[in-house]
């Protein structure tokens, strides 16, 4: 492949670049980065008015394989990632069997090697079978390539166990990604507790069910002098707690999903389970606080929490449908529409939260757009606009609250390890 990406605005927080540059790629390797490169006999991609960035990383994806292949497979989930502009995804451990042992990690990596379209970085469970009772073998799991530990979906309710997990993980420098939720406070809740839940007769999940656990985990992190990453932060109180922790110089990081900074409980189409996820959509006040948190870097990562389900699981009574929505293919448009275009974040800062920051937390090596490295590139067309519908979706799941909505700013090219996997909204493999 000889490819010249011309006239794009290169936004690379890894190498601190933000200017209009051409990029020349030969045999998958970036050979030249300069203004006005002219080479004969080469495929030219005109990226005029487009954004060229290092390949995006999604640090919160559910690929569902092994065990729930009816919802998603590594092949389909990684294709959705490529379509969404991601060159790497971090996949959660709530598979079946749970990713809590070397064999399952190896299985995921071998399927990813054969069928994966983007890089797949597995996460292993903190506790055996995600039951919150016994620790998994962190050392063994690190040896076969897990990048982090998480019981995502199941909070670790036992504070003693969480303490030991944080301590033990220090030996391996593995981050613990915490799903902060007090299960007793959440009960059988299905939407945010407030006026909406009250009026609609739905059981509520109060915001304190998250923030109580965020507070606990921050205290445990301080006590054990360890590291903590808080997943899918959703409330104002949680943001305040993380901000305080950072002021105290604790090693606490946080991520937010595009649906939490884009939607509130008031946007829920009544009893449509495509609006059901955990944590639930919160209030406008919470949404504003999340955006503030992104602005002052209290929240340094944007992650999808891509959670595909089958149609029949979601086409049912709201309280009986499973939690979760797909997200890989809508992260970029929602980030542009709701953070960049209204002026809350610069393109540079937003891209940083999708590239450099997750790679630092997970210690994933990212070279960025640099001479003599394998091309790992995403090109985004900020003007490209679609009515988002089921036919466009590459993931096996179509459970999105954004169906039927006009979305703008889509990735148009994804290059993974020198290989073009998506071009002009088509998967190339």
């Amino acid at each position: 492949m000889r490819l010249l990406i011309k006239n794009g605005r290169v936004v690379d927080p890894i190498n601190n670049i933000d200017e209009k540059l051409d990029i020349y790629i030969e045999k998958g390797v970036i050979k030249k980065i300069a203004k006005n490169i002219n080479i004969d006999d080469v495929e030219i991609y005109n990226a005029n008015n487009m954004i060229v960035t290092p390949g995006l990383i999604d640090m919160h994806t559910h690929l569902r394989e092994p065990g729930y292949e009816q919802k998603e497979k590594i092949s389909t989930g990684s294709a959705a990632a490529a379509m969404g502009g991601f060159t790497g995804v971090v996949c959660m451990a709530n598979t079946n069997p749970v990713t809590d042992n070397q064999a399952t990690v190896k299985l995921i990596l071998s399927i990813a090697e054969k069928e994966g379209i983007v890089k797949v970085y597995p996460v292993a469970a903190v506790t055996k079978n995600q039951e919150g009772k016994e620790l998994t073998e962190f050392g063994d799991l690190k040896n076969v390539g897990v990048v982090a530990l998480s019981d995502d979906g199941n909070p670790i309710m036992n504070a003693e166990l969480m303490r030991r997990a944080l301590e033990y993980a220090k030996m391996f420098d593995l981050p613990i990604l915490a799903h902060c939720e007090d299960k007793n406070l959440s009960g059988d809740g299905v939407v945010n507790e407030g006026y909406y839940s009250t009026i609609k007769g739905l059981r509520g999940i109060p915001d304190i069910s998250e923030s109580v656990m965020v507070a606990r985990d921050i205290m445990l992190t301080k006590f054990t002098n360890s590291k903590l990453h808080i997943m899918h932060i959703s409330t104002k109180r949680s943001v305040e707690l993380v901000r305080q922790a950072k002021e105290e110089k604790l090693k606490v990081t946080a991520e937010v999903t595009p649906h939490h900074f884009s939607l509130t409980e008031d946007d829920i189409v009544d009893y449509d389970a495509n609006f059901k996820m955990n944590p639930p959509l919160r209030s406008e006040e919470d949404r504003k606080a999340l955006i503030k948190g992104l602005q002052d870097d209290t929240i340094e990562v944007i992650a999808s929490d891509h959670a595909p389900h089958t149609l029949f699981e979601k086409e049912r009574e709201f309280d009986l449908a499973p939690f979760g929505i797909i997200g890989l293919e809508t992260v970029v448009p929602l980030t542009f529409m709701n953070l960049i275009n209204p002026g809350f974040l610069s393109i540079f800062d937003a891209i940083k939260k999708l590239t450099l920051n997750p790679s630092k937390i997970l210690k994933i090596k990212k070279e960025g757009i640099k001479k003599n490295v394998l091309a790992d590139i995403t090109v985004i067309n900020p003007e490209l606009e679609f009515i988002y519908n089921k036919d466009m979706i590459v993931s096996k799941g179509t459970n999105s609250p954004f169906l039927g909505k006009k979305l703008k700013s889509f990735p148009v090219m994804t290059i993974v390890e020198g290989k073009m996997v998506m071009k002009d909204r088509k998967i190339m493999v």
Partner: protein
Amino acid sequence: MKRLNRKDLLDLESLSKEEIELILDTAKPFKELFTKTKKKLDFLKGKTIVNIFYEPSTRTRTSFEIAEKRLGADVINITVSSSSVVKGESLLDTIKTLTAMSADILVMRHSSAGAPHFIASRVPISVINGGDGFHAHPTQALLDMFTIREKLGTLKGKRIALIGDILFSRVARSNIWGLKKMGAKVRIIGPATLVPEYFKKLDVEVFFDLKEGLKGVDVVNILRIQRERQKQMLFPTIREYNRLFGIDEKTLTNSEVLVMHPGPMNRGIEISDYIADSEQAVILEQVTNGIAIRMAVLYLIAGEGDINEIIN
């Protein structure tokens, strides 16, 4: 000949004041017919109504069935055990099957809030909500309002107290929407754990003290207290509940106040025998009125013919 210009009756939140008035006005001639010999009508002749109940119910299901039969409909009753909600055929598939059998109207009760809304948006037949989770019970609220209007002449400006387990009550929610739309003043009274203050946003007054809450009321609507709430840590004992919120001759001293209860009653818990059997209690009239309201709703949604011609 006026009709409800809608396919379904799902809740009172989505009904206008005019629609509520139309239903209440239409129920009146139907009730008058009860006292005449001609109880049976043919407004729904040839229509098939399926009463599908995913939750046990005696009074609501029977009331609907009587209303349907008096309107001349063919009636099918299906009771689905709650275990099969989780394990068996999906709700949507069941309802699509009934639609394929050309049912015309579905009366549905379900333990999940919004289940009738979900179904109504996916099948072409009329859906009438017979109670969904703790979200809505529109015909119950309509019959409550009918009863109040019959006894007090109007709803406008009247002070109505809903007492007890508001949090888990579909009757309370539908009453709040309906009464507010009709210009009544609504207050809710009960333990702080069962009376969500979020209702204040709907201009509803909140009281945690029964004595305070009862001051100046015209109507008390006493809700059934479920024993399982105790296990959910929402109040310590039935005994204390009764002492704090039970309506008896000592707590309700004004014999002018209309006493209502949607049933089934827990005598000795939320209501005393004395009050339940007193002159001021209209609990059995509510049951009678329920049939008139349900006839009116069915007639206004799917009936053919004109009730006024029969009455006159």
